[in-house]
């Protein structure tokens, strides 16, 4: 074998596999620490008995992958002719067509993912296979959580409660993941999820749940134009007479052109040499929105108005009234996340965690799979008793 590194292998597209004349290093190479060119996510080797494109990620230190004693149910595209790119796309198609017919493989993928590739942010959805719909859904983003916190603080809710609410959310989500990890056969725990992605072995689900395939060109969605009122053809705005002058007439121009002083409603009128005209003292003290003088824009009525929602903060400071910085905040920059929980709620059953802003998908329900055989009854499996075969039909679809 030549001593050179196989270029195709680096990109995840070598079709010679173990027969290749060039080197296929099986562990992380220094010049590919980012796993470039890995068509598959790291934990795919169980689907990849020929070791194609083994990812350069740091997770490839499992006992040697390729010879798993399970049935290789993948359709191998007889790689004719055109070389790398065909192989690549065929592999990718296989990926997209991952039918989860081998639950053991899927479960392995999930286990590896959740063990090795756990991101720091916990309030997330998850899918074990790229381009497939989520196995665990119910995304909450940083900004959503933050907006909730700021809003609560404005209403006078103390920081501790906010932290606790967030922690509950997190615990709930982590528990959901744990449940999923333990019993992926039951499909996603989330109620809204369409029936399990692990169909019984006898039946092959030809399309991923959700009704559309990843590479579908023209997905057949129900009409997405749900705009209010009559459909608005795009050209309409051109024909519309420009009658609508939004908003109150502009007050007299506030100054010479260019970046001069802000409109007077904002604070001291004339251009003071200070930094930002209106809102000046950037006191870091207050947690909340800062010293916003009741903004003149409030009064700008009109049509848009201040909108529904919270009334304007009457005062400008003390947004987080009862914040006592020191005790409450242990700024633990050092250790791992403030959200450290260790033994999440093994006994956690089914709270419906309701989060504002995420009306769908975050509600948890305990896996309520119907129970027949005692093994499927168990909430928690000990290692060794996890069934290898797919559950009988009765359990699979919820």
């Amino acid at each position, binding site marked *: 074998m030549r001593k050179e590194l196989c270029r195709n292998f680096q990109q995840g597209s070598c079709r010679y596999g173990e027969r290749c004349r060039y080197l296929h290093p099986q562990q992380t190479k220094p010049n590919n620490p980012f796993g470039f060119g890995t068509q598959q996510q790291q934990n795919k080797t169980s689907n990849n008995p020929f070791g194609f494109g083994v990812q350069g990620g740091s997770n490839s230190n499992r006992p040697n992958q390729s010879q798993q004693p399970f049935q290789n149910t993948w359709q191998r595209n007889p790689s004719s002719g055109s070389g790398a790119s065909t192989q690549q796309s065929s592999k990718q198609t296989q990926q997209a067509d991952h039918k989860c017919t081998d639950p053991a493989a899927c479960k392995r993928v999930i286990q590896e993912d959740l063990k090795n590739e756990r991101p720091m*942010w916990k309030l997330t959805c998850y899918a074990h*296979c790229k381009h497939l719909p989520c196995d665990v859904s119910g995304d909450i983003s940083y900004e959503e959580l933050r907006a909730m916190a700021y809003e609560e603080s404005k209403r006078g809710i103390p920081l501790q409660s906010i932290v606790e609410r967030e922690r509950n959310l997190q615990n709930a989500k982590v528990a959901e993941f744990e449940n999923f990890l333990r019993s992926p056969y039951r499909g996603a725990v989330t109620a809204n999820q369409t029936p399990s992605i692990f169909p019984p072995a006898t039946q092959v689900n030809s399309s991923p749940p959700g009704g559309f395939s990843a590479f579908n060109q023209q*997905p057949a969605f129900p009409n997405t134009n749900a705009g209010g009122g009559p459909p608005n053809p795009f050209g309409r705005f051109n024909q519309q007479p420009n009658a609508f002058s939004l908003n109150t007439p502009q007050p007299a*121009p506030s100054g010479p052109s260019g970046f001069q002083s802000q409109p007077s409603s904002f604070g001291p009128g004339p251009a003071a040499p200070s930094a930002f005209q209106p809102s000046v003292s*950037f006191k870091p003290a207050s947690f909340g929105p800062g010293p916003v003088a009741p903004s003149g824009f409030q009064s700008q009525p009109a049509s848009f108005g201040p909108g529904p929602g919270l009334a304007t903060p009457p005062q400008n400071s003390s947004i987080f009234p009862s914040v006592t910085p020191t005790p409450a905040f242990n700024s633990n920059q050092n250790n791992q996340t403030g959200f450290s929980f260790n033994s999440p709620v093994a006994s956690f059953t089914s709270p419906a965690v309701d989060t504002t802003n995420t009306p769908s998908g975050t509600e948890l329900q305990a896996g309520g799979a119907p129970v027949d055989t005692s093994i499927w009854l168990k909430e928690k499996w000990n290692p060794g008793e996890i069934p290898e075969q797919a559950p009988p039909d009765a359990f699979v679809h919820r």
Partner: protein
Amino acid sequence: MATFGATANTNPNKSFEVTPSPADSISSLSFSPRADILVATSWDNQVRCWEISRSGTSLASAPKASISHDQPVLCSAWKDDGTTVFSGGCDKQAKMWPLLSGGQPVTVAMHDAPIVDMAWIPGMNLLVTGSWDKTLRYWDTRQQTPVHTQQLPDKCYALSVKHPLMVVGTADRNLIVFNLQNPQTEFKRIVSPLKYQTRCVTAFPDQQGFLVGSIEGRVGVHHLDDSQQNKNFTFKCHRDGNEIYSVNALNFHPVQGTFATAGSDGAFNFWDKDSKQRLKAMSRCSQPIPCSSFNHDGSIYAYASCYDWSKGAENHNPATAKSSIFLHLPQESEVKAKPRVTTGRK
């Protein structure tokens, strides 16, 4: 603000700091498409604007003006002529601010939930806003009602426009591609190639595809055309040992076609997707970088260093929190595309 002489940590790249710094975290940064004017939106409800000037390798910033919203501001966008700034946020409104002419801001858009991202569509003179109310709305700024409302499968988390291509990332890993010449129809809907929550998307400058970043320290490079699917790949970044941080921002260099990523680990990196290389890894700041932006010619890269809530309310300490905006002058070696490394072929 306690600087314990720890500038090495807070600003290890010795970037220029824009002052005065906002009182609370910065949610978005936008440079004018015409001049070096930087706008920052913040969780302290303010939209601020600075004029940046550069002489050689030194920078200066002059604060110019600001406006406020009633609630935290989450996103901003410039009109393509560089005269007007749009901003939107938790108050569910978007404001149009003709700042070059010193005009007052007016509200031009409304949603039923906070607006998280927006973009100006130059070809159509419309503003598109995406919100947690699961819709995209297109606005002619002269009208009160949206020209069109587009339902999304889930809450909008990010959007990117490179006319006529628009990519929208939503919760639960949906990615929807629109051809803005036919905006009422989804051109394509795919599920993310990444396994976890989508954090940011940006379209290729040549509109052949887009980048998607997630919370799992990974970026996906996705091409739209079926014939180019074999060029798709993902790569890992913003990881530190076993700690996996999120990729918060993706920005293409306007000239070079390379791109930058910025993450919750406080680092920003420059990458070349065509040769699949990392061009430069910058040093980690002590705080996450939630947003970033190149200026119109790529000579300045602005990034914010402030808490992004990646560890919840618990780790927010307003008494000691410092939110900074830094400007980095990318060197050619950091952003210039590199040819692919070639090895012998069979």
